């Protein structure tokens, strides 16, 4: 189920839709579509374990749209740019390995950025993705999150600093990640 996610400061007419699937049965088939560059099936396909929170994902969407508008995308299209925008470095292939769908993906996040109606995309997803569609909420997302994987992906190991409570640690991790994403490509 694609649901529209309101994001501030988007260009006029552009909308962002997100779907979340638990227990995807056919990740290999979905990967194939990507490898074969199936132009009909154009989405940002993200392994949900690599996403910490809605803000984490939406910050990448925001950056991708902004880079696209400024005509400085580094990857093929806006949807691959979303995956690349999750990265803290300029290695596109690596960003796909770390954040993109793989044949081992269990929970899948799908993002569609479009200026047209979502129904055709919704139909495509129903056809291609075999999994339990759930609402894109912080509560659902956190069930998929693999914090260890994320800390490794961003090279943010747990420090030996005095223990802080869980919500606080999560907040700081999210902030570190947003900072690293914003600084990607800074020179």
């Amino acid at each position, binding site marked *: 189920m694609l649901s529209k996610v*309101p*994001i*501030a*400061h*988007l*260009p*006029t007419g552009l909308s962002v839709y997100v779907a979340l699937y638990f227990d995807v049965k056919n990740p290999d088939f979905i990967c194939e579509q990507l490898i074969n560059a199936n132009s009909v099936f154009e989405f940002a396909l993200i392994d949900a374990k690599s996403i910490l929170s809605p*803000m984490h994902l*939406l*910050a990448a969407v*925001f*950056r991708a*749209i*902004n880079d696209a*508008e*400024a005509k*400085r995308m580094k990857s093929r299209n806006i949807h691959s740019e979303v995956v690349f925008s999750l990265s803290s470095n300029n290695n596109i292939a690596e960003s796909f390995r770390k954040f993109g769908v793989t044949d081992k993906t269990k929970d899948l996040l799908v993002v569609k950025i479009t200026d047209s109606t979502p129904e055709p995309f919704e139909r495509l997803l129903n056809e291609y993705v075999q999994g339990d569609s759930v609402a894109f909420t912080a509560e659902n997302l956190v069930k998929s999150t693999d914090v260890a994987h994320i800390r490794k992906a961003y090279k943010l190991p747990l420090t030996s*600093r005095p223990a802080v409570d869980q919500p606080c640690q999560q907040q*700081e991790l999210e*902030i*570190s990640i*947003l*900072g*690293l994403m*914003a*600084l990607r490509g*800074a*020179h």
Partner: protein
Amino acid sequence: MATTIAAPVQEPPLTNIKHTTTQESSTAETSTSTTFIPPPLPAPFSHTTAPIQLIAHGAEALLYKTIFLTPDQPCILKHRPAKSWRHPKLDVRLTRHRILTEARILVRCRRECVPVPAVLALDADAGWLCSEFIESSHGVQGRGLTVREGLERWRKNNSSLTTSDDLLGSVRDLLRRIGEVVARLHASGVIHGDLTSSNLMLRSMVRPNASAEVSSSEDVSLSGEVVLIDFGLASMSIQDEDRAVDLYVLERAMGSTHPWLEEEFGLMLDGYKGSYKGANVTLKRLEEVRMRGRKKSMIG
């Protein structure tokens, strides 16, 4: 260094700007006689339908309060508009450099647990940086609370007190906390470069259902967390000279903005002293820097 401390300027009026898609910049409505026409907002904010209000404009940058992605994440948009008198290519390069330097230092500070606003997004080419809005339950008109405003309001409310009064306790405590925060900044290898009481904010919990209007301009508490802002002149250094000059700038700025507190400034240094290993060396150096400053001002 001492000569670079300008008299603090009056806080600009809160300006509501209506943005249209064609970005007519004359739509700013000002409540005072000063008519300030801000330059057009950078993309993607130029077409935004979200609330965005100008809260400060300096020589280098314009500051807006708006939201990042969703209404529950208020943010500060710092825009460094193009300078028409500079060569365009050079201007873009300089702006880019400033935005990235500030962002890098903020990110570094946050990782080192130094209290600064989080970096949320940036576009160095377009000249903007979005950072976390530092909220205060005592901010007026949706603004946060700077240490400067906090101290000025506190003084107005407590004008009958003398410096020996116990009630000065909250001010003394604040000065100590400022020293501690600056020490943590220095310990992480960062020099702020422009430490003033306007570049320090007090963060406090905003009650979810209390509207900004509830807080009056008199009501104030100095108990919030001290947060460092405005890293436009910051740099990386662990030299005691740089650290000492940073403290000296703070002392001088506080002295000119809050002369009634001059006798209490030692408390800032007390807070600084115990907070990291090199603190004592820096404080020794500060004495030298003060001497030089005095000589300089005698020569003129």
